[in-house]
């Protein structure tokens, strides 16, 4: 599959784009990258277990998307959500402690890598049933609409979810009721090990969304500016009313689906071709060419990301385990909280 596909030219970047934003986008992509590289290492060391789905290569999607949302918006994400959680503001310490299964984790160690949650930051997962987050997003948007709140709900999912009935039911409801949902499809071309063309009869994902009379556009998911511009426009359109919007971010994961996946279904040449378009090095090269960044500044950003990761690991290592006596906690709301 070719790494370059047809995309709409993004409209002008959002007016709110401030001069510090490009470096923040770069710094945030580096934070995700260094966090996940450490997770892979800790997985090898047996500190992190379970399923671990890395986002390496896709960082521009989370950075461009999360920076286009307001703090009060809702975010529903999948099991490949470390980057979204982090850029939504979930502290890296709490994310790392969750990976370790510690009580200080953002889900008290009950969720792990696939179930990061943060109520204060309106981060609703961490959903590990493919497509399962889509109806939730529709319901959150319905609640905001009925409560006359100006929030929108961004739902991040992969292209594999578009084969699920939940996608079709959800986008139909959102369009039928004109709800403020941003459908954010991160199309990394493989649903686990199954290529898009081998799993879906219609591979033009925007056409699928358009079939439900939903506005749709594609953007280069390897280019953080393109993602930020496209999602920014979509967010503005959803916030202005007129119902849901679908954005396809064309991206690629450099690693396997999960740590258990031997990745036998992709050509090495294909992976290498996409790596040439890696979002961090292409964007830092752009910023250098524009005179906004030099190598020393890049190294400082990278060192800061690495230091944050090291601190998070130290925090998670030192954090206590939840007592087994609390095993049955939070199955139901405790009396005191009712």
């Amino acid at each position, binding site marked *: 599959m070719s790494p370059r596909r047809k995309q709409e030219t993004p409209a002008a970047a959002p007016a709110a784009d401030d001069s510090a934003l490009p470096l923040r986008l770069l710094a945030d992509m580096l934070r995700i990258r260094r966090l996940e590289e450490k997770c892979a290492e800790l997985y090898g060391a047996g500190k992190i277990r379970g399923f671990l789905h890395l986002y390496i290569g896709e960082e521009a999607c989370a950075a461009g998307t999360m920076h286009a949302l307001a703090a009060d918006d809702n975010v529903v994400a999948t099991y490949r959500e470390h980057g979204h959680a982090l850029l939504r503001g979930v502290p890296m310490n709490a994310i790392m402690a969750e990976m370790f299964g510690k009580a200080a984790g953002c889900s008290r160690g009950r969720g792990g890598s696939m179930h990061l*949650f943060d109520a204060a930051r309106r981060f609703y997962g961490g959903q590990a049933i493919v497509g399962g987050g889509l109806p939730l997003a529709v319901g959150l948007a319905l609640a905001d609409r009925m409560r006359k709140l100006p929030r929108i709900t961004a739902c991040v999912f992969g292209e594999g979810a578009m084969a699920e009935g939940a996608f079709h039911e959800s986008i139909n409801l959102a369009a039928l009721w004109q709800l403020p949902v941003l459908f954010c499809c991160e199309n990394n071309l493989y649903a686990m090990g199954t290529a898009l063309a081998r799993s879906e009869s219609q591979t033009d994902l925007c056409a699928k969304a358009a079939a439900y009379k939903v506005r749709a556009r594609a953007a280069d998911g390897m280019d953080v500016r393109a993602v930020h511009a496209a999602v920014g426009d979509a967010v503005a359109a959803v916030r202005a009313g007129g119902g849901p919007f679908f954005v396809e971010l064309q991206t690629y994961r450099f690693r396997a689906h999960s740590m258990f996946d031997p990745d036998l279904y992709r050509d090495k040449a294909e992976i290498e071709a996409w790596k040439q378009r890696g979002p961090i090095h292409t964007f830092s090269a752009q910023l250098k060419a524009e005179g906004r960044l030099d190598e020393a500044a890049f190294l400082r950003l990278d060192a800061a990301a690495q230091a944050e990761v090291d601190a998070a690991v130290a925090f998670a290592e030192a954090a206590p385990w939840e007592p087994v006596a609390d095993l049955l906690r939070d199955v139901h709301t405790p009396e005191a909280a009712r």
Partner: protein
Amino acid sequence: MKTSYREALRLALREALIADPRVFLMGEDVGRYGGTYAVSKGLLDEFGPERIRDTPLSELGFVGAGVGAALGGLRPIVEVMTVNFSLLALDQIVNSAALLRHMSGGQFSVPLVLRMATGAGRQLAAQHSHSLENWYAHIPGIRVLAPATIADARGMLAPALADPDPVVIFEHAQLYNLEGELPASPDGWACDIAHAAVRREGSQATLITYGGCLPKALQAAEQLAADGIEVEVLDLRVLRPLDTDAIAASLAKTHRAVVVDEGWKSGSLAAEVVARIVERCFYDLDAPPLRVCSAEVPIPYAKHMEAAALPQPERIAAAVREVLGV
């Protein structure tokens, strides 16, 4: 006042919609049509299409939207036409509604009320007649209710809505036309959603049942009383969590149990009740507990075959005689 089970449900819905602006009803045909079982008839005119919300035939979508709306601060009541169709929404009920609180380390509650019809007896054949309450009663994180009386149909919705966690309410399709006296004052119908209820006092054996089988168990108890056999009838009402104390208290008195459940015997709720009796009340027992369940067959259409598949008062009475050895 004299009323029906259906009207009692509607009274409760209306009261909930008036009491709390966060409450809304959503489901297939609940609005313009008035509800498949006519429970929500008239509510659209009174509360409008925002709060009496017709949905597409899209169970996974609208049940999941109910979960999201509950997360978003509303108090949705989602009606699924029958338990058979709820299987299309099982992912959202089991993988989202029931798990979100625990999986998020206690950060999110899902105050969702899910209502659905269950059960056979109307010659609707296999895809509209099943009783899968035990599937739901298996899942930690949800509460499962089965109103079997007009008072419970009136009284269970308010505490279900007050529960911050998801509640599933099973309404047996055969009960909608049930008529009887509904006390005028809430003292007569208000109920908690934690305890079983003794519907008839007795000393010789306990009939343990719920939902659509309660009237049949009471009929069997009447027949037995005519022969001088005094049977206690315990209505479980709450299928999860089960009120094991109430079961044990009754068995301490009667020492004999027959469990009546419209589910299939294999893996049934009745199986769970019997297991608890054996674990907890073994030394109180004077006879092995028995179960009266549906025959292990998809419910047939033909009336005589359907009747033969379901628990009936005669079979229930016969089981009581068997545990009594008379």
